[in-house]
């Protein structure tokens, strides 16, 4: 029973973390181009 609960909790945590990571990566991808796409360049 404990193993089953641990598996379910672990799966949920993995889902939350992976969704969070994807969200963070996606938002970071959006932010960076919006800030620099219209720049003349970078030093």
């Amino acid at each position: 029973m404990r193993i089953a609960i641990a598996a379910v909790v672990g799966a949920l945590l993995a889902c939350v973390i992976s969704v969070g990571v994807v969200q963070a990566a996606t938002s970071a991808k959006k932010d960076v181009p919006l800030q620099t796409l219209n720049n003349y360049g970078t030093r």
Partner: protein
Amino acid sequence: MTRLTVRGFRYLPWNMTGQMRHLAAGLLGLVLGLLALGPALKPGFVLAYDMVFVPHPVFGPATFGLLGSAPRQVPSDAVVTALTSLVPGDVVQKLLLLAIFMMACVSAAALVPSERLLPRLAAGACYTWNPFVAERLLIGQWAVLLGYAALPWVVRAAAEAGERGGGWRLIRALVPAAIGGFAAVLISGLTAVIVAASRGRAVGRVVPAIIVVSLPWLVTGLLRGLPADTSGVGAFAARADTPFATMGSLLSLSGLWNAETVPSGYGSIVPAGVWLGLVVMAVAGYALWCRSAWWRGLGVAAIAGLLIAGLGAAVPGLLRVAIGLWPAFAVLRDGQQYVAPLAVLIAVGFGVSVDRMVRANQAWTAVGVLAVLAPIAVLPALAWGAAGRLHAVGYPADWASAREIIAADRTRGDVLVLPWASYRSYPWNGGRRVLDPLPRYLDRRVIWNDAVTVGTTTMGSEDSRTRALDPVIRSGGPLPVALGREGVRYVVVDAAFDRGRLAGAELLVNGPDLQLYRIQDLRPVPEPEIPRWIAVLAWIVMLSLTLWSFVAPTTTLVTLFPPLHQRTP
């Protein structure tokens, strides 16, 4: 006659005089140009940073610098617009780019004090194919390169300015720089003044010649006033793009402020080290063996250019103070371009060194052939559209639709471009950065944010209409009513933007690459514009004296129309 000892080449004319030597250098320049541009020569437009060509440019007040941003595009835009009325715009662009390579090779080759062909071609190749050309090409500053290409002619003409007709010859030599505009003329003018001054005379002829070819942008620039913006000093200062620090990079003819325009693979120790070795050898060759009339003047101009180039990086505070005192000193912010006279010196020194080598032993002739190829071997990343970074593309169909709708509308009113920034990275252009082409593409007054952002530093706008609209657009609120009050008839969105802010405006084009909105209720806004007759007068004086320079020095009415018995069949 020196002949190559390798079988098969022995009958080639390695010593050339007259026009033939220019032909050989021109052909080499053409080959180098074709090699460098590669895919950029396909049908379409090469859009990279400041290089903006459009299919149907039209003459307007902005073309002549009468309104909008500072007149950096004067007179190059006018020349391109005139040429585009004769041949398609993309062809004009390719011809101009190829002309830069051919002129650079011919002019540098002609400056080498040698009768031998190999040293001249080596100098031509060195001047045409180096980090300066690569970086300025990648940042799209073809107008600067136009002046650079003719700089060796300017050096010779400035040295001979004291002779009969010397002033007119200098104006002729300055024509490519004059087409390029203020940056090209400043570099050529600085070099010409120093070369002439080193000869102890003729500065009185050189300065008027420079002023004559500068009139179109000088008059409008002075009347409109220049912005005293010191924020660009740090942004546009030269930077180290080789392992040899900023001054070592500048000595290597690289060091442009933009990290994105370094040729692929150039900055690492081996290619940059080999190239710097060639540069040092060329400078030594120049100092030891070049004793032409202009050698001292060109040497001083190269040193002065190198010091100016390093100014923004070494003592930025001094440059900020200078700009604060007189805004015109802002022309020194992008200092790296002032290494152009050093490039002439290096090319001539390279040619002179090859000449010594070949003269010492004919067996070295084969090595001389390799010397012609050396710049390409050291900087292969310039080849084939700078290793695929320069491509020709077509403008999307949405753009053409928007242009037709706006051109067909007889109602007055300006065009606003959103998003509120000057540069774009369009998907249809491979994501390459480019100055928004819409102000040149559309046949109407275009208001756009000409403020330039480098990294996190933003230089302020130079257009009064932009400054007036800036708070409205940055407010984040609905736009149509506020824009109508400011005289805006159309809004063009050519990149990601919150379109909800344009609710209420009529959507005319809704494509993936561009959206066009029309605002019905607007109030025309009078445009602050300098008197047109002053600009017209400046153009008339410049064109008249430039045309006269091609006729005046060597011909009189008698030689133009010799008696029949003196004419050769």
